[in-house]
């Protein structure tokens, strides 16, 4: 998870981000993206987004399959394959290396490294776990402040406005589009126009 995500977030954003991460982990994807946030919206306890998506023919099993297809075909917002699997092709056991680093330097050593002067030049890498795709950041964080979403429907609207090619491909595979869903969300939220 990113440093930004460690900061205080409103409850719905925090919950959805965690669920998106769980979905990415579960599918062994190499990043957390808008594609996974769509799945998180389909399982969230706030039914607003789930109901809008269901009305447009989008349900969890088909959405999970579409996300898996889009990402494994290289059309997602992030890398096609996850880092642990890539390193395994070289005979390296990333979970074992991560475990050893935590044992040697403490459970928060990697996060602390990135906060230290020495670590600031680093790009997000394998020891950190999954990184957040730019489109997802755009969907969840506006400017310097927090998004402060009141319902999952508002998160869905922000997600549709994030300009995610991966999400667009998932929606196309599900027979929908950002434009169709945007209209449906605005109608439901009473924000048409």
């Amino acid at each position, binding site marked *: 998870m990113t440093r930004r995500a460690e900061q205080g977030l409103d409850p719905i954003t925090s919950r959805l981000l965690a669920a998106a991460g769980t979905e990415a982990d579960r599918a062994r994807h190499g990043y957390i993206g808008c594609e996974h946030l769509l799945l998180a919206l389909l399982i969230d306890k706030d039914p607003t987004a789930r109901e809008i998506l269901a009305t447009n023919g989008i349900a969890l099993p088909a959405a999970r399959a579409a996300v898996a297809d889009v990402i*494994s075909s290289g059309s997602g917002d992030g890398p096609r*394959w996850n880092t642990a*699997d890539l390193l395994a092709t070289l005979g390296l056991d990333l979970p074992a290396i991560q475990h050893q680093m935590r044992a040697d*330097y403490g459970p928060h050593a990697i996060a602390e*490294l990135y906060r230290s*002067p*020495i670590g600031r030049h680093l790009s997000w*890498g394998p*020891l950190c776990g999954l990184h957040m795709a730019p489109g997802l950041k755009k969907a969840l964080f506006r400017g310097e402040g927090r998004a402060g979403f009141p319902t999952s429907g508002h998160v869905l609207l922000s997600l549709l406005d994030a300009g995610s090619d991966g999400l667009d491909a998932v929606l196309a595979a599900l027979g929908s589009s950002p434009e169709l869903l945007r209209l449906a969300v605005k109608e439901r939220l009473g924000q048409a126009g």
Partner: protein
Amino acid sequence: MSEAISLAEAASHRDPEVGLAAVAALRQMLEQLEALQVKAAREDGWTWERIADALGVTRQSVHRKYASRRFPGRRRT
């Protein structure tokens, strides 16, 4: 999308996309491991010369990489 290929399948065919992505991931991991070790060494009071020797590089190259930052245990002048 039936054209989706598993990593194991692609790797078994020596797909350069997999090989290059794996090397990129390895390079990123090495950068992180090096920074983690350098940070630990500085916190233990190692000099930059000693760190450079251990890494098998010149003191100048270590400085080029890290000297634009403020290091633990030493202030820039």
